[in-house]
């Protein structure tokens, strides 16, 4: 195995939680999450040479993971499928076996009701990223981040209470 790939796998291994959580937020079903996880890994590897241009590894991983997930979420075949057969989220696991608490499941259900943009912003907020980091990952201003977070938080709380 070459050095660059070794380094990449080391980074991936340390930050893989991000990939799972982004997939969890955007995809309700295990097969979709697994496909997405694999696609993110591949896209990260493809853009690995550009990592040196990024200030933080975490931001780079979030950006690639979110952009990849958004690009996959609207695949027409899946939309058609979802329109005909109501999709039920897997309550019990992400990728591998994972047990979610009831409150986590409620929170996740509330996140599923947000749009793709708010999902990414809420995910970064829940991950306790600073406004600077969120602005860098999403590509908007810090003040814009603040407004969006407040709005998404309100929506989330409303969904959470339902």
């Amino acid at each position: 195995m070459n050095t660059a790939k070794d380094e990449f796998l080391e980074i991936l291994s340390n930050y893989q939680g991000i990939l799972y959580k982004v997939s969890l937020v955007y995809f309700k079903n295990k097969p979709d999450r697994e496909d997405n996880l694999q696609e993110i890994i591949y896209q990260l590897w493809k853009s690995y040479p550009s990592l040196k241009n990024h200030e933080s590894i975490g931001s780079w991983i979030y950006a690639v993971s979110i952009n990849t997930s958004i690009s996959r979420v609207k695949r027409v075949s899946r939309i058609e499928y979802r329109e005909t057969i109501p999709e039920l989220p897997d309550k019990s696991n992400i990728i591998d076996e994972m047990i979610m608490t009831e409150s986590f499941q409620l929170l996740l259900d509330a996140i599923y009701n947000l749009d793709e943009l708010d999902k990414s912003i809420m995910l970064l907020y829940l991950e306790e990223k600073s406004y600077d980091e969120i602005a860098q990952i999403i590509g908007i201003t810090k003040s814009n981040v603040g407004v969006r977070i407040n709005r998404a938080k309100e929506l989330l709380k409303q969904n959470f209470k339902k």
Partner: protein
Amino acid sequence: MENNELQKIWKTINAEINQKSKDELNLLLKSKSNQTINKFLIIISISIFVCVGLLVYLMITSLNRQNDLIYLVNNATLGIITLISLISGLLSWYKIENNRYNQPLKNWLEERIYILSKWLTGRYSKLYLFIIPLLYALTVLSIHVYFEDKLFLEVINTEESIIGLIVGTPIGLFVAYFGARKIRKYQLTNLEFLKDLHGRLCNL
């Protein structure tokens, strides 16, 4: 509910994530790379195989019909359009598939919207409406004239040929347009989705 209560709930998942080993991650990467390379090779191979096959056919039939100028013009036009279509088709496909995800969401959206808009609504976006029937007519004529073993003008002046073209053309065009429309519809839906996201990102 306190703001950080949501964050506390969210954090509970960290302990539950089943971390994969480096070998497992490497296996996932390898399998995805192979899938992507295979998809790429299949599309490239089929496109090149069909086009080269058509070009070889055009060359052989042209060599056998050197005395029929209109037939030669028909085949030459078909060959040139086929080559240009192959090259521009592969380039467009590469551009669309080659996503640069390693940038902020807003920049990525803008880049994708630009590429898709150029392809779907740009100056040459409706060219396929003209190219498909032209390619179809030239191919059908080339095959039909060659196997009739007569001069181009003689063949297209017969009643049978005209009826054949009238009956066959709508069927062939329907299949071709159906495929092209399906791809465009998918990409247009995608473009609208990206524009909508970008619009919401820019407008507070």
